[in-house]
């Protein structure tokens, strides 16, 4: 029966979402706790992959692929290069202010509680889910059409920004010239 199948799919999607959410939160926590920088970077890669699958769940196919290619594939590889270059140091000295760590954790818990209140405490939480699934929503063609029509100027400015970043990275990492 279609109704029962729809209910089965609903629970399956929610189950996948909760599984991914647990993976994302646990890997982020492991990244924070780990004393080895390389392990932290790899845990962050797991987090990015979990978030990419979440993007797929929410009909953002193109952005999911961009996330995997650019974030997990290029940015984290750059991090790993630099960690290898500097040597995976275990620089875990206590923060200079003794109350910094408990204050940070307390404030972060307060932040999460505030999020929870805004999202679940008030009646009009965060909006309604649309009932239907639009065709080609989040496909490369539709995102590309928006990028090249409505957001053309930001697109070109971003390319100039990337050029500036490239030049900056090369200039900053050049060794001092012996005069």
């Amino acid at each position, binding site marked *: 029966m279609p109704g029962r199948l729809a209910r089965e799919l609903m629970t399956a999607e929610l189950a996948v979402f909760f599984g991914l959410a647990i993976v994302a939160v646990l890997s982020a926590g492991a990244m924070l706790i780990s004393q080895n920088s390389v392990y932290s970077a790899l845990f962050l890669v797991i987090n990015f992959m979990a978030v990419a699958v979440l993007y797929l769940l929410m009909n953002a196919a193109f952005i999911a692929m961009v996330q995997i290619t650019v974030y997990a594939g290029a940015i984290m590889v750059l991090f790993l290069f630099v960690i290898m270059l500097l040597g995976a140091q275990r620089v875990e000295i206590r923060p200079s202010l003794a109350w910094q760590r408990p204050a*940070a954790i307390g404030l972060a818990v307060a932040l999460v509680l505030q999020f929870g209140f805004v999202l679940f405490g008030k009646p009009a939480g965060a909006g309604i889910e649309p009932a239907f699934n639009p065709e080609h929503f989040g496909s490369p063609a539709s995102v590309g059409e*928006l990028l090249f029509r409505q957001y053309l100027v930001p697109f070109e400015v971003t390319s100039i920004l990337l050029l500036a970043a490239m030049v900056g990275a090369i200039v900053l990492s050049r060794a001092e010239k012996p005069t």
Partner: protein
Amino acid sequence: MTIPVAYVVALSGVLFALGVVGVLVRRNAIVMFMSVELMLNAANLAFIAFARARLALSGQVFVFFVIAVAAAEVAVGLALLVSIFRSRQSIDVDLVSSLKG
């Protein structure tokens, strides 16, 4: 489809808070940088969730730009880190305090 937007935005909030804790608690500059990337990622997740709820593709386009800017920021930031390491032989941020009065 049937995942409530509030759940996804709550997950984004939790990830953001974890990133904040990472920046405030860790002293290793690279791990602090990775926590900043975690925060950016959490914001992206909220954008995608709302783009799905409002059926507005602009949210996804904005995520595209955020990822591009994050890539640029990581390149420059890591180059800075390498340069600082060359002069100090350490990446503990508490030691980079020469401007402290």
